[in-house]
């Protein structure tokens, strides 16, 4: 088996090339321990060649997860060959990574992509010359138009020698690197010696840690590097970077000819004149977001996503499957318990989750278009200023917007955010936004307690957004988030047409990962909750119960109701509110249904539970209603959303931390609202929890306004200094 690593810059057409070379025979996973996606596939017509897709990177520096994953793979796993894809229309910067790949002492094949666009621009690139200087084959391709792929495949199938290393650096640096190689000769595998020498010269922290140099060696290395730094009056990292770019300029002068006439604006520039225009950018952005929302999640005639979801909920899982299963179970003579498990536990639980699939597919198809054509980078460009204050990325806008419809695709949409910190914070806070399923809860209390005031729904949104902002500001100051510097130095790639294959592949990939989750984690959770809801202790023995009042869940609710006493859930409503909160984990609209069952013994209530308004109004005061509402709006989301969090975090610790944070935050806010609100209305007398409430409020304010851990993240510090200086 021969393994070829596919490396290249983001936006170089790497995904398109990977899809074209491997067809549908791909395997997607994650790199061990990180949320970076890992894809591999067999080369078409060459079953014995495995193509390992590396994350899109600009450099092999040690600073981003993607770069670290890629270089660890290239150096440790030693693939048989590296296929380096470079964007022919942006050759200068793309070759920068090439200069680093050529130092790995692995055979490299260069695929110069976007041949069609290079031709159209009138520029010429002499690949023969380029291939000769770089010492590796260079093939002109267009991954999009499937041009040159046969030639490339043939080159990949041939055995290639490790290329000669081009002379990139100036003599002083070359000499220093030779000395370092002697120093490290017995420390590292000989084939990677040069690469290690370069990294040691750069004082690459990860490599230095790995090398375990003794103090004598460290000081010798330091002496070699410092000598060169003095000569150039610059730091080692910068010297190498500058010389690499100088080298690229030199070689391109010999093989790249720009069209003689002054280039006019490209199509991409013309689009950007409107799309990122100072005045038009925001209206265009709002229009595009509105369009996507309407088509995927809205309630109009063009809302394909909603129609699909309604169909799955009302027809497929509303009639067809339950009826079919019922007939089957009756025919087979299956017992009451088992048929309840299948119908009420599995079919209902999984059905509730699979209902989201059509919306997810439509939404991700549309988002893939934005990503593929290059608009997503513009979103980050336009919204960055607003969001970075909360530790989020400009791209966080999309998950938050989508979450007003449903948190599940919202959380999944966070995947387009490159920076690890921004992505994690977005995942953790997206669930705070009131989703469609929380609307019935809001409706119930607005109707029962607040005279159907529209302010309730409005304030629910304000609370959700405030929770995102406050959490962002609080969390970004913790070391675990602030420790990772997230420079915002982002390419705005030229616009291009998305390809249908790419769109379908990425849409399906996301949809399928969600369906898989519905089949495992979500299924298991639904069964547990079904068990608790359907069984009860009757006359001392465990048996199936019709009435939710006597179910195990009700017992559990009574047992755990004390937890919510500080939130004002007291008296008879305490256990009902607790049980409703638990059933809300299946889906938030269950909260209203549960109240229906518990208050009126009704199997079905209308969406906003009008039947039980009077009973609810008797049990909840304005303050307790707020406390309950806020807790349910902010606490752990439904199982489907938790599944999405697990999928995107790809790490149990982070998943549990997210859910724990949401519950904790919800509890704290509800407690403060109830205790302090109650004091103001006279409903609560001053008690020990009043003190707790004021203490928590104080703590929140401290967390909000403290300086926080800044670490190496000098960007934020500089930003603060700049803004306060104005």
């Amino acid at each position: 088996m021969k393994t070829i690593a596919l490396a290249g810059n983001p936006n170089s057409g790497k995904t398109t090339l990977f899809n074209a070379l491997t067809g549908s025979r791909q395997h997607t996973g994650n790199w061990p321990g990180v949320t970076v996606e890992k894809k591999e596939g067999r080369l078409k017509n060459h079953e014995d060649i495995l193509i390992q897709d590396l994350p899109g990177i600009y450099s092999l520096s040690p600073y981003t997860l993607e770069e670290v994953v890629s270089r660890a793979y290239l150096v440790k796993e030693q693939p048989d060959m590296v296929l380096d894809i470079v964007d022919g229309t942006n050759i200068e910067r793309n070759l920068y990574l090439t200069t680093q790949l050529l130092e790995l002492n692995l055979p490299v094949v260069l695929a110069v992509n976007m041949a069609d666009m290079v031709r159209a621009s009138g520029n010429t690139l002499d690949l023969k010359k380029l291939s000769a200087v770089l010492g590796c084959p260079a093939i002109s391709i267009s991954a999009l138009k499937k041009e040159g792929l046969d030639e490339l495949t043939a080159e990949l199938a041939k055995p290639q020698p490790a290329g000669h290393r081009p002379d990139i650096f100036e003599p002083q640096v070359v000499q220093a690197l030779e000395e370092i190689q002697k120093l490290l000769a017995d420390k590292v595998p000989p084939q990677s010696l040069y690469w290690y020498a370069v990294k040691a010269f750069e004082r690459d922290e990860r490599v230095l840690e790995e090398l375990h140099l003794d103090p004598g060696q460290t000081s010798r290395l330091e002496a070699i590097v410092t000598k060169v730094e003095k000569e150039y009056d610059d730091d080692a990292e910068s010297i190498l970077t500058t010389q690499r770019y100088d080298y690229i300029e030199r070689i391109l002068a010999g093989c790249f000819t720009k069209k003689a006439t002054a280039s006019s604006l490209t199509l991409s520039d013309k689009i950007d004149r409107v799309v990122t225009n100072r005045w038009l950018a925001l209206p265009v952005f709002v229009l595009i977001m509105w369009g996507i929302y309407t088509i995927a999640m809205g309630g109009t005639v063009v809302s394909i996503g909603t129609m699909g979801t309604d169909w799955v909920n009302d027809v497929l899982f509303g009639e067809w499957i339950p009826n079919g299963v019922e007939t089957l179970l009756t025919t087979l003579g299956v017992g009451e318990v088992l048929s309840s498990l299948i119908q009420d536990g599995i079919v209902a639980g999984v059905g509730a989750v699979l209902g989201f699939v059509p919306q997810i597919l439509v939404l991700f198809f549309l988002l893939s278009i934005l990503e593929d054509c290059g608009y997503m980078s513009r979103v980050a460009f336009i919204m960055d200023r607003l969001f970075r204050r909360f530790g989020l990325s400009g791209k966080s806008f999309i998950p938050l917007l989508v979450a007003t419809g449903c948190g599940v695709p919202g959380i999944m949409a966070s995947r387009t955010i490159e920076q690890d910190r921004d992505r994690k914070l977005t995942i953790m806070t997206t669930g705070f936004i009131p989703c469609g399923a929380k609307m019935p809860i809001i409706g119930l209390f607005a109707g029962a307690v607040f005279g159907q005031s529209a302010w309730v729904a409005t304030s629910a949104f304000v609370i959700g957004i405030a929770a995102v902002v406050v959490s962002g500001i609080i969390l970004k100051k913790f070391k675990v988030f602030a420790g990772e510097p997230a420079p915002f130095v982002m390419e705005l790639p030229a616009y291009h047409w998305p390809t249908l294959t790419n769109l379908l592949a990425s849409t399906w990939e996301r949809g399928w990962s969600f369906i898989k989750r519905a089949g495992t984690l979500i299924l298991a959770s639904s069964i547990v909750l079904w068990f608790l809801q359907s069984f009860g202790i009757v006359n001392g023995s465990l048996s199936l119960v019709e009435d939710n009042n006597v179910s195990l869940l009700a017992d559990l609710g009574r047992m755990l109701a004390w937890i919510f006493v500080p939130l004002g859930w007291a008296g008879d409503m305490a256990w009902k509110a607790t049980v409703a909160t638990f059933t809300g984990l299946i889906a938030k609209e269950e909260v209203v249904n549960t109240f229906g069952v518990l208050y009126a013994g009704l199997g079905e209530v209308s969406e906003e539970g009008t039947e039980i308004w009077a009973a609810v109004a008797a049990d909840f005061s304005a303050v307790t209603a707020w406390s309950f509402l806020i807790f349910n709006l902010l606490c752990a989301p439904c199982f489907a959303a938790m599944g999405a969090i697990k999928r995107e975090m790809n790490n149990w610790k982070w998943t549990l931390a997210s859910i724990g944070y949401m519950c904790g935050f919800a509890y704290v806010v509800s407690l403060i609202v109830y205790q302090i609100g109650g004091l103001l209305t006279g409903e609560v007398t001053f008690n020990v929890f009043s003190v707790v409430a004021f203490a928590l409020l104080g703590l929140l304010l401290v967390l909000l306004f403290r300086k926080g851990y800044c670490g190496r993240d000098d960007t934020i510090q500089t930003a603060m200094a700049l803004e306060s200086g104005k």
Partner: protein
Amino acid sequence: MTLNEFAPGAMLEITKLTGSGAVKRRIMDMGLTRGTRLYIRKVAPLGDPLELTVRGYELSLRKADAVMIEVRKAGPTQEAAA
């Protein structure tokens, strides 16, 4: 002068990069090295970040990071005319 002090439309040449660590490395990896010419194409609608044309492509950079880039005015080239 540093890059953040210039308005869109300026054609500049990098004289020095200050700062250190990941942000500086990232800026240089993207092709902003000593002697590189760049053109400030625009500012985002909310006033930050900047959009630059450098080495034939478009790059966005926050003003806070632009502080690290010392520049001087350069004569117009093809890119400026575009």
